[in-house]
């Protein structure tokens, strides 16, 4: 089968629109609320989940015929947990200040429903390359939402993006106040709801 055959392209593009993990399947919401207070941790988290989903999909897909049926969930968990631990150690070594901000949440990627969902639903039954594309697509779909919510929350909650102050001091002098609620997780939930609304209204094409 060609590398980017029609089927493979669909495998990659579906999770970005119709079968979007957060917007379509409503999975992985938890960390979408916790780490999106600022844009930088949201980007790093999105990348981490993409990398881990893609590679755990590949690994499980490669060994899928050897996994005993009775312990398959346990084996999936072990693979994901090992990968998450490695990624978290790498973050601590190469991007220390971000790892401090993400601390607990990187460990929580293990419990992210998106990962287990894709492993059970796709990687266990498909070849490595399509599994990789599926993992990539789901991870990027998830990262997209994190970036959107993170950008809105940081811009309205702190007046900055990636730490760079965007709202000029002049506006503060005129009486503009940062929206404190944006820094709280409740607002992230409302924002995700709004994104789902926009997605369903304009981008969702029922098969």
């Amino acid at each position: 089968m060609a590398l980017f055959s029609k089927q493979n392209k669909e495998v990659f593009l579906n999770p970005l629109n119709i079968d979007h993990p957060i917007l379509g399947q409503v999975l992985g919401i938890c960390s979408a609320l916790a780490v999106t207070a600022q844009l930088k941790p949201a980007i790093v988290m999105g990348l981490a989940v993409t990398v881990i989903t893609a590679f755990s999909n590949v690994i499980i897909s490669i060994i899928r015929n050897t996994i005993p049926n009775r312990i398959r969930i346990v084996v999936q968990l072990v693979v994901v947990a090992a990968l998450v631990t490695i990624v978290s150690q790498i973050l601590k070594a190469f991007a220390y200040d971000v790892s401090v901000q993400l601390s607990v949440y990187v460990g929580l990627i293990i419990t992210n429903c998106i990962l287990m969902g894709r492993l059970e639903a796709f990687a266990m039954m498909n070849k490595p390359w399509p599994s990789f594309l599926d993992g990539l697509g789901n991870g990027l779909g998830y990262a997209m939402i994190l970036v959107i919510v993170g950008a809105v929350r940081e811009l309205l909650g702190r007046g900055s993006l990636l730490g760079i102050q965007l709202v000029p001091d002049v506006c503060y002098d005129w009486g503009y106040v940062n929206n404190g609620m944006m820094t709280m997780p409740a607002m992230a939930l409302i924002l995700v709801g709004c994104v789902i609304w926009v997605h369903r209204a304009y981008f969702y094409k029922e098969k």
Partner: protein
Amino acid sequence: MAKLNTNSNAYIIIYSAVLVVIVAFLLAFVYQALKPMQDENVELDRQKQILYSLNIRNLDGDEARAKYKEVVKAEGEKDGRKYYMCSIDGENVLVVQLKGMGLWGGISGYLSLHNQQAPTVYGAYFNHESETAGLGAEIKDSRAWQEQFVGKRIYDDNYEVVLSVVKKVDDPTTQVDVVTGATLTSNGVDAMIKECLQNACTNAFSLFADIMKQGAQEQAPVCTAPADSTAACQ
């Protein structure tokens, strides 16, 4: 060879054992390989925090390390707490390590003090493990809040700690306003300051006596020698 029965008990047990061993080796290897870099990062972070408490911010990497070497003259530990004697523009500044409990987890920080007729705060930096973003976390994120501590008097005439974090500021020379909406975390900071600064001068003198005596000859030291063991500072 007959097809491998992946559901036989023997296979399941052997499979799990092999999987666990492989993963264990992999994780141990990664941990070993990355430990030096991680330790470097943790050490650099500690040095940067001490520099923040000395109001030297916006330095990173090698610049921060060089400035740390230049500024910190001696360090010591007493009662499980670290103290650092620093010299900034020829003036002796003492940095005290702070450790306490916030609302959801531990809080820590560094407070630096110098002598302006009486020990006063030179600068402060606070850190936390798991306080609420936007509320308790402001003790770390809000530079403006930390800068409120600068210039406040720490001890009263009986050498009790009067530097405090309160809801209603009656005496602006010794009191700092709490973070709005983060009363419990701020109370934690208040308790941490009182506990860690109580014996700061006595401990510092026993650790850095030579530097402080030297300072007594050249300019006003951070704290002078206590006349007896019960007086914190004279």
